[in-house]
């Protein structure tokens, strides 16, 4: 596959949503260790609404879909997740505005926009023990792949997932500098960040 259209994107988002729903409890459990145990619930709440959104959305505009998803997250989800993912999807929407087909280069840009959207509201960087520790390496892998003409999109996603898994694993050795895990200080050592684990799981689906 060299490009994705709106129905491909919807397909990917649907799989992501299902994965979130399957992992609701697992994500909560992960958050319970270093945070307050609601991450899976919040994310699931958002993705349930997104699934409805995916069914209702009847334009070809990939950016428009992402923006709608972002607005849904801001409406539905509280917690850090609501603002972060809402901002991420909205930034993605702005980046892909008007496009009915996206190449690997476009997708790689969209993921970058997603990250920048999150950073604008959350201010986290690599090493802060957040989901960005999985997402940024994944984006980098994808950017790398997008430089060559040969890599197809599925393969690029696979590489991104692998990079995310490595990144998520590394969060075990980090002391949190953002989010609720910071209250634990050194006690956050040894456990992965829930958001990073989630990104790793979602990208590998």
């Amino acid at each position, binding site marked *: 596959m060299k490009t994705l259209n709106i129905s491909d994107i919807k397909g990917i988002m649907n799989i992501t949503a299902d994965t979130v729903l399957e992992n609701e409890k697992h994500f909560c459990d992960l958050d319970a260790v270093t945070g307050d145990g609601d991450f899976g619930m919040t994310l699931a709440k958002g993705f349930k609404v997104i699934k409805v959104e995916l069914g209702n959305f009847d334009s070809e505009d990939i950016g428009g879909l992402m923006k709608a998803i972002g607005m849904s997250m*801001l409406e539905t989800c*509280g*917690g850090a*997740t609501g*603002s972060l993912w809402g901002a991420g999807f909205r930034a993605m929407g702005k980046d892909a505005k008007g496009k009915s087909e996206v190449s690997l280069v476009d997708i790689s840009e969209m993921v970058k926009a997603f990250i920048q959207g999150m950073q604008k509201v959350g201010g986290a960087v690599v090493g802060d023990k957040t989901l960005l520790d999985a997402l940024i390496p994944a984006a980098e892998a994808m950017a790398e792949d997008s430089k060559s003409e040969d890599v197809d999109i599925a393969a690029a996603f696979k590489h991104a997932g692998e990079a995310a898994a490595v990144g998520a694993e590394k969060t075990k050795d980090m002391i949190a500098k953002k989010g609720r895990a*910071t209250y634990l200080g050194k006690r956050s050592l040894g456990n992965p960040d829930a958001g990073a684990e989630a990104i790793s799981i979602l990208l590998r689906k």
Partner: protein
Amino acid sequence: MKKIINTPENVVDDMCRGFVLAHEKCVSLDSKYRIIYRKEINAKKVNLISGGGSGHEPSHAGFVGKGMLDGAVCGDVFASPSVMQIYNAITKLESDKGILLIVKNYTGDVMNFDGAAEMAEEDDDIHVEKVYVNDDVAVTDSLYTVGRRGVAGTVFVHKIAGAKAETGADLKDVKAVAEKVIANVRTMGFALTSCTVPAKGEPTFDIKDGDMEFGVGIHGEPGVSREKIVNAKELAKRVVGRIFEDMPVAKGADVAVLLNGLGGTPLQELYILYNEVSKILDKAGINIYFNMVGNYMTSLDMAGASVSILKLDDELKILLEAEADTPALKM
């Protein structure tokens, strides 16, 4: 999990409905956005909005009423309300004198309240100011972290800023007094048991029979250290000691003390702890000018308590003692 609920998903909606039925003479509910607000909205005073995750009852809805908050936005259990919930609260309570948001300092809360304020200012030209409560001395404040958490001391901010707004003061003055409270209040808490988030159905952390979590927050986040349970006297000593380390209080000073239960601890034990806290302050020559003992900022069914100490000056004393008529605090 042993809870009086229907289903975990309905906890917050059912609770909001029950709350408004119980207090229908003074509050109303926007059930779509889960906003609990004063029945009579006064657009001629600064309106105060707070809120956060649910599970801290009576906070924050219990403080909506004369002399305290004008609106409270209820998130899911332990999850801050969404940007749109908060945004809708701001537009609903729009006032000529502007809006003050009282935000507990958590990543999620800060991002969502900030996002909503920005939206209301940009789209609706509403003047919104924000204060961030960060009274929890369990967490060391450092440049590299998100800062201290907001916990039970928030109730003093509601009370005092609410009383100030009731005088007809301007937004900048209401904000200033709220910030004065924040600068002068510190809280330290501990938990004997974990709480159980309904959606999770199991305790957030495991804890042995003789152990406690010292320096715990109000969301079942594990504390700063796991320690052996000690008696009330020793608990008081450690808790007050930690507060004084962070914020020295001079001999002869007047303070307000909030002895707050975390939800699962009966009043009997809170009074026992208050007795010890008050002995310590007495010995240190500090005068408890005002006190509150009870469940004000809870963490679901967690057993445990927190102590908040607020240094008072004349302005704070007057505002603290001003009339309040809310479901959870009447004076």
